[in-house]
């Protein structure tokens, strides 16, 4: 890549936070409250606040702020808190490359430049896998969305999204698409999931009744996949393949054509890990985010990662809580200058999709929420999971039910038994 012309003197800051969503803003606010004078947040969007800015429906804030906000209200709350705390936020500013271990280059309407920090927190969030990344065949007409692009069409640009939609996915974010379509007056032809059941489980009752009521009225096809998109000038229909329905020839996998003019791909998250990868940070094979330990430390000294960059898919509230937690670890690093020399990766095997934290730095690791968090690949009942290091079983735990696209906790009591000089850890089915 050609070297860009740079301004001579870099901006310096104690802590640079890349990404002004819930995790980045919560980290900045906490750092200010812990007494750090110089905290700079950069965000590539015209306004900080992250994805909740575009989710103009209720359901934000109960866990971190103990009350329910709409997405835009929630984003505004964090922006205002950051302003009050004296956080400097630069919007329309895109970090483009690393110029040193904790030095980054940016592009903005004000020009190009570099920012030199003592510690960097990456909080670049996540995105949904679009149609192409899921290898869905067929024509490529307009009318194909992700929840993210749908929300921007409806709430940000007020653009038409059709009259009859099919939603791919049936997890909590899919409800966000349902609410957005309802707001835009678009009929919902079908909700489609490859799993045995929808995956909407909410821990708190008021929201639960509201969302379950929506869900009851939505036609859901389970054990079904989208096998083709039809249409030239616009989506005209989709072809669904039902795993359990027999074809005329008596084989499983009958197809069905559903008329619609929009298809919304929901969930199937992938971390926005571009900057992490450009910085040669080690990625975790399961989460596709940077490997991080319980203190949010990545493989690169002085570089932390928080929020949905770690794994996609958690709620804004979890990301914001993590932002608050990473701040303490950044402060500790700036005070003591310690970075783990030895780290043991925690890998996954079926039925586990991913786990985080996914490196162990020592027996004294204090887990962010008191436990490891994992997601399974599919529904399963009465499963016994185990953590191994080489052939040694460190831990076993039984689960009555595993649910895909729903986070579950894995005990951390086994941490003192980890051999830091030993082979990688592995969590999977107990032998």
């Amino acid at each position, binding site marked *: *890549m*050609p070297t*860009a*012309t*740079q301004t001579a003197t870099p901006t310096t800051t104690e802590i640079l936070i890349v990404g002004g969503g819930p995790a980045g803003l919560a980290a900045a606010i906490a750092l200010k409250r812990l007494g750090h004078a110089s905290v700079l947040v950069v965000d*590539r969007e015209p306004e900080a606040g992250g994805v909740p800015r575009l989710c*103009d429906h209720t359901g934000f804030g109960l866990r971190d702020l103990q009350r329910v906000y709409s997405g835009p209200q929630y984003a505004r709350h964090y922006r205002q808190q950051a302003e009050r705390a004296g956080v400097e936020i630069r919007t*329309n500013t*895109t970090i*483009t490359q690393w110029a040193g271990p904790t030095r980054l280059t940016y*592009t*903005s*309407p*004000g*020009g*190009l430049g570099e920012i030199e920090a003592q510690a960097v927190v990456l909080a670049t969030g996540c*995105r*949904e*896998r*679009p*149609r*192409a*990344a899921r*290898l869905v*065949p*067929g*024509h*490529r*007409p*307009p*009318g194909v*969305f*992700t929840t*993210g*692009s749908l929300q*921007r*069409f*409806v*709430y*940000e*640009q*007020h*653009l*038409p*999204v*059709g*009259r009859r939609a099919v939603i791919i996915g049936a997890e909590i974010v899919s409800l966000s698409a349902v609410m957005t379509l309802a*707001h*835009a*007056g*678009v009929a919902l032809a079908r909700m489609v999931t490859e799993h045995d059941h929808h995956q909407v489980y909410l821990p708190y009752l008021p929201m639960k009744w509201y969302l379950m009521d929506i869900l009851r009225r939505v036609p859901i096809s389970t054990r079904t996949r989208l*096998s*083709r998109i039809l249409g*030239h*000038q*616009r989506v005209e229909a989709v072809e669904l393949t039902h795993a359990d329905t027999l074809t005329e020839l008596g084989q499983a996998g009958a197809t069905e054509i559903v008329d619609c*003019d929009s298809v919304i791909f929901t969930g199937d998250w*992938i971390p926005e890990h*571009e900057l992490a*990868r450009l910085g040669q940070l080690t990625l975790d094979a399961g989460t596709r985010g940077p490997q991080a330990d319980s203190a949010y430390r990545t493989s690169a000294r002085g570089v932390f990662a928080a929020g949905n960059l770690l794994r996609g898919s958690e709620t804004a509230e979890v990301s914001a809580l993590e932002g608050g937690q990473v701040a303490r670890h950044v402060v500790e690093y700036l005070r003591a200058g310690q970075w783990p020399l030895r780290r043991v990766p925690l890998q996954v095997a079926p039925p586990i999709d991913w786990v985080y934290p996914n490196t162990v730095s020592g027996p004294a690791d204090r887990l962010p929420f008191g436990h490891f968090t994992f997601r399974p690949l599919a529904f399963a009942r009465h499963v016994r999971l185990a953590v191994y290091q080489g052939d040694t079983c460190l831990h076993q735990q039984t689960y009555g039910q595993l649910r895909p696209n729903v986070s579950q906790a894995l005990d951390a009591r086994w941490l003192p038994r980890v051999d830091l000089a030993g082979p990688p850890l592995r969590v999977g089915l107990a032998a």
Partner: protein
Amino acid sequence: MTASPPAPIYDVAVIGAGAVGCAIARELSRYALTTVLVEAGSDVGAGTSKANTAIWHTGYDAKPGSLESRLLKRSYALLAEFMPQAGIPTEPTGGLLIAWNPEQQAALPKLLAQGHANGDHDLYLIKPEEIYRREPHLGPGALGGLFVPQEGILCTYTLPLAYATQAVLNGAALRLNFPIQQITAAPDGHYTLTSPAGTLACRYIVNAAGLHADSIDRLLGHADFTVVPRRGQLIVFDKFARRLVNHILLPVPTATTKGVLISPTVYGNVLLGPTAEDLPDKTATDTTAAGLGALWQKGQAILPTLVHEEVTATYAGLRSATEHSDYQIRLHAEQRYVCAGGIRSTGISGSLGIAEYVVGLLAEAGLALNRKPDFLPVYMPNIGEAGVRPYQSAELIAADPAYGQIVCHCERVTLGELRAALTSPLPAQTLDGLRRRTRALQGRCQGFNCHAAVLGLLAQHTGASPYALAGLEDDHANRNANRNANHH
């Protein structure tokens, strides 16, 4: 009421604004002639020219003595001069043809001889050690290879646009959305081309209609060939795959296809494809589970770690294959008509050579070619990774801060570039047109972030209804839906 001025009779009408038609119109615009470039679709370069492998072929493997071989060689030299002048993204990656079994290995010396027969192409046989030194991520089993240093990659979006832009700057007319239904010859010797959008008059006709070249040929009373679309499905991998491959990795070709290749793109991605499926349907640009699955398997064998990266896009294009292996370029002098059909899979690479040849044929049929004193140059905005992109240019951003405001984050496309594409001599009028001119929406998120903003900008600049731009009917129900959204 004033009478409208009489419709002009153009000296030449070029039918089809793909890479070949645009190159011919550009070539004609050097001369004191009136030329009209006629296109059925809504943009130039929007058919086969946009959906292919984007390889800059040298023609080393063409059939010796064929017109294709001769014109590819000439075109290579012309492109080497034109592309840097016009700012067309291109990279001299070189091609590496790899034999994976003994039969393929036995074919390599023949291909070498064929390359030499095609006019001293630069070619070397190389051993497996050299192959793996050049391509460390290659899968096991390569037995030998043929290195073609001059094969390269180019931007198939910018090239036809540059031709058409230069033609227009030099006085050619461009008629989009003009699908020709009928051609009639008048007694005074001019032709009338009829489409639902109206009529055009001309004296000479060039048929560069690609997939529809046989239909146009039939309208003029000929049935020299039939186009059977050969579909090619392709998979584009994420930019993080770019480090896995240094050259265009080619298989040993067969009679019908150059085979499935893996190639870097000038946008910094990696391409896997194409399939080769003969189909009767000229609109079958859909991908299939079988096609994508077959590509996936081949890709995994050639470059095992490629499939660990994310897929950014899949698409399919239709090559204009005929029953003949060579180009079907024919002069019907008495009709003042040149047919440039059957340009199966080397239209981009052969475009400038074909244009020069076709204009020569028109002269043979009596078209007077008098060079104009000036031939205005064209310089296209850079959308390739090998050059400096606007977001990297302090000078450009200082001159216009919009070049520092990134709208499409995955491809780092700035507001300045989008505005420029919407106000250029051939402005984008559709979302796909804007996508091809800027790379917006072409990245890994496929519009998760910028789809709405880019469509909003397009609607604002073109004044077109967002319904029409999104392929929706602007009816009552949709308006209601929109009113709800606007209420907010």
